[in-house]
């Protein structure tokens, strides 16, 4: 065993008196109880929204996309805005699981499970939009490049829209595998505690017969490492390629080289905001305040202020370059964006994404739960407007003044969007009921270094001199090496 030590300057990641059993008890027991009334209300409301979405989409497919507000000039409207918005939200989970893992940020263990689940649901929602935007959705399989059925006709491999198909489906697959492989040991824990036969059977299935042997864990670790390695570039690739959908064009406002990293930063920004929205509620309802502490929320708020500021630099850079370029098309695009009939969307974006997150420089506000909740929603409103600004306000004043247009969504588009909320929350409610919302095994892994009661005992180490401590660590290492040699 490595010496368990963490500096007193860090907040505990698990509060109050906890041992391994108590952790299991706290996180698994909600699965075993009947959900409260609020759960049913929320769940049924989500299902209703989902059904309304199904109706709106069916309407659009049956009557055709003429039922939408998009027109010849503004060919992408709410559909693609919502697509990009949901994909962006679906970035936090894998960022937390993979990149924060690489950066050894211990606080990820409290939030990664819910964030990964949220990621998967968000990507599912996102995927609906391009599919139904095709119009003749029954021909949707044309995006898949398989030979010998359509004569010489192939998808256009030069198109970033096609790269998107690959990027997002790969991302979805790897995220799902990553999430699920983490769930296996926890499902086994649910199975082992199960009092009813049905539960034992289903969670037994779901845990793939996990027995918790050393070999099980060894393979599990190896798999997690491979998936984390794959997931890291994937997180970057997805929104990068989404940004290519715009930036490879020659449309002022779309064609700009900063798009790839700036889209990724914005995606992380909105993803973390959505995680906050969900976790602020989840921790309260499931009484998980000791695992998702204020410290966790504060850490995520720091990520929000950082990424919000990065996005802010990108906005200002774009704006500056449109002037600096000396290209009249660029200059006009930004003039119409900021001062044209859609001015309100630009300023909503700026306020919500750049200005208001700056309040998180104040520690008191970072640790204030109601404020965090409100801000998390503000950020996602802002990020929705960002996509709307990029898409609609770059298109509506195009090269020929005669084709200038204005766009407002029609009810099937709005219904479609609401329907994806239904889908998202239906999935999330089911997740919160049937899945361990916190990674039990991972919390146990950090418990003895970062649990409050364990940290209290580290006071002895804090008082030790550096030399004593170093000596202890070295003899500790030496003794292990000896064992290893034998």
């Amino acid at each position, binding site marked *: 065993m*490595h*010496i368990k*030590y*963490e*500096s*007193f*300057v*860090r907040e505990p990641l698990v509060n109050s008196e906890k041992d391994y059993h108590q952790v299991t008890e706290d996180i698994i027991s909600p699965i075993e109880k009947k959900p409260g009334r609020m759960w049913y209300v929320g769940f049924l409301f989500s299902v209703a929204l989902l059904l309304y979405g199904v109706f709106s989409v069916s309407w659009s497919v049956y009557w055709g996309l003429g039922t939408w507000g998009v027109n010849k000039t503004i060919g992408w409207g709410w559909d693609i805005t919502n697509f990009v918005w949901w994909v962006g939200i679906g970035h936090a989970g894998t960022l937390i699981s993979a990149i924060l893992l*690489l*950066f*050894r*940020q211990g606080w990820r263990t409290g939030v990664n499970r819910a964030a990964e689940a949220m990621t998967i649901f968000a990507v599912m929602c996102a995927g609906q939009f391009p599919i139904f935007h095709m119009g003749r959705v029954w021909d949707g399989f044309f995006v898949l490049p398989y030979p010998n059925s359509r004569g010489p006709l192939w998808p256009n491999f030069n198109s970033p829209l096609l790269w998107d198909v690959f990027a997002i489906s790969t991302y979805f697959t790897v995220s799902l595998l990553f999430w699920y492989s983490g769930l296996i040991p926890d499902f086994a824990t649910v199975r082992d505690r199960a009092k009813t036969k049905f539960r034992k059977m289903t969670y037994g299935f779901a845990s793939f017969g996990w027995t918790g042997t050393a070999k099980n864990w060894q393979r599990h670790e190896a798999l997690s490492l491979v998936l984390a390695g794959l997931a890291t*570039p994937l997180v*970057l690739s997805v929104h*990068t390629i989404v940004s*290519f959908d715009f*930036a*490879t*064009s*020659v449309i002022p406002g779309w*064609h*700009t*080289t*900063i*798009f*790839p*990293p700036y889209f990724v930063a914005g995606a992380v920004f909105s993803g973390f905001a959505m995680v906050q929205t969900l976790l602020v509620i989840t921790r309260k309802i499931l009484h998980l305040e000791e695992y998702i502490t204020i410290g966790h929320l504060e850490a995520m708020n*720091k990520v929000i202020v*950082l990424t919000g*500021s*990065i996005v802010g*630099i*990108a906005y*200002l*850079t*774009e704006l*500056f*370059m449109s002037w*600096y*370029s*000396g*290209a009249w098309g660029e200059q006009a695009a930004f003039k119409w964006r900021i001062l044209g009939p859609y001015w309100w969307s630009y300023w909503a974006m700026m306020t919500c994404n750049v200005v208001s997150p700056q309040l998180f*420089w104040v520690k008191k506000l970072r640790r204030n739960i109601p404020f965090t909740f409100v801000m998390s929603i503000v950020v996602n409103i802002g990020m929705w407007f960002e996509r709307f600004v990029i898409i609609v306000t770059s298109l509506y004043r195009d090269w020929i003044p005669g084709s200038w247009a204005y766009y407002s969504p029609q009810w099937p588009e709005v219904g479609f969007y609401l329907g994806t909320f239904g889908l998202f929350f239906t999935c999330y409610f089911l997740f919160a009921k049937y899945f361990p919302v916190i990674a039990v095994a991972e919390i146990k892994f950090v418990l003895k270094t970062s649990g409050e009661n364990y940290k209290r005992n580290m006071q002895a*180490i*804090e008082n*030790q001199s*550096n*030399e004593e*401590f*170093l000596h202890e*660590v070295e003899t500790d290492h030496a003794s292990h090496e000896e064992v290893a040699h034998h």
Partner: protein
Amino acid sequence: MNDRFEIPASLKRNSLALIAIGIITLLIGAFTMLGGDVYDKTRFWIVLLHNSVFFLLISVASIFIQAAVALAQGSWIVAYRRVPEAIGANVWLFGIIALVIMFCIVFGFDVKGVNPIYEWVHPGNDKILQGKSNFLNKGMFAGFSIVTVGLWAFFGRKFRAMSLAQENAPKNNTKIYWKFFRWSGLFLLVYGLTQMSTTPWLWIMSTQPHWYSTLFSWYTFASAFVSGMALILLWVVYLKNQGNLVLVTKEHMHDLAKFMFAFSIFWTYLWFAQYMLIWYSNQPEETIYFKLRQQGPYSVLFYSNFIINFCMPILILMSRPSKRNYFTVTFMAMIIIFGHWLDYYQMIVPGPMGSHWHMGWYELGIFAGFVGIMMTCVSRTLARTSLVPKNNILLKETIVHLS
């Protein structure tokens, strides 16, 4: 754990020799080039510009990493944090050198009414340059540059001072720790508004003033940051070889190597984003940048840049054992610094020099001079205090750190 570094005679001798080479090169350069044609004169100045900007930006990366680690509450760097502190505390010197050179170029370099490096100094009848003159003008350039260098120099010294002050604070007192935290947040803001945006536009991008790319500053950041981490690694290995930095283990080296690996790929990501988008949309006012570099007289540098800075790190640093091998990481750190020095060369030189570029005695001699300055001043700063921050709040964590 009093870990004092005494500058070995060999280091003193070698660094002074390098500085001497630099000065001699400069003098010979002045005599042979300043009397020559426009390209000779330009070569004289632009090589100085290239090196001073490169060395300044990779030193500032040391301040950035301190701030980033402080905000993330990382303990891995504590075992050798005196190294980035010492580099950061010498930013003022590189800053002044760069300012002097840039001001000579902007205010004093004139060949028949034209400034061959910063063409925008005399916009003449050029409509595009006239349009940019609210930003690209001498006053703006001087103001931005002075403020930028001043702030960087201040933060570099401030960070070291705060870290040293911790040594005299009561044991386990966190006052300075949180103070450092707050100043770090402020530095990120400064860094965002300088290195990540305005500074590279003025200093580097404006050598080809008709061309623009929104990604440009982030790209220069990636380049400077990865070489800055490589620079820290070289110092750590050197000090380790001298018997110092007792707390540094392979775990810590592994971390630094991971940074070199990961940010080499990050650099490539930005390289690709900028290149691919410009190539794909194929607009002449943008492709001119790559036309000159990829298909013009700089194609050797263009491809070397990619091979050295991407292919080599990804292939060599991918495996875990190679990141924990002192020889491999040292070799790769030198490669990365050289590679990004080339990268900066091909950002700065092609615009003004066109096909008249050189990579010869003058370029390498000036480079040697800057290396000598870096070795002399950083080693002197390092020798002033113990290399172990004994009273650092996170010291014990860095002792048990596993990569």
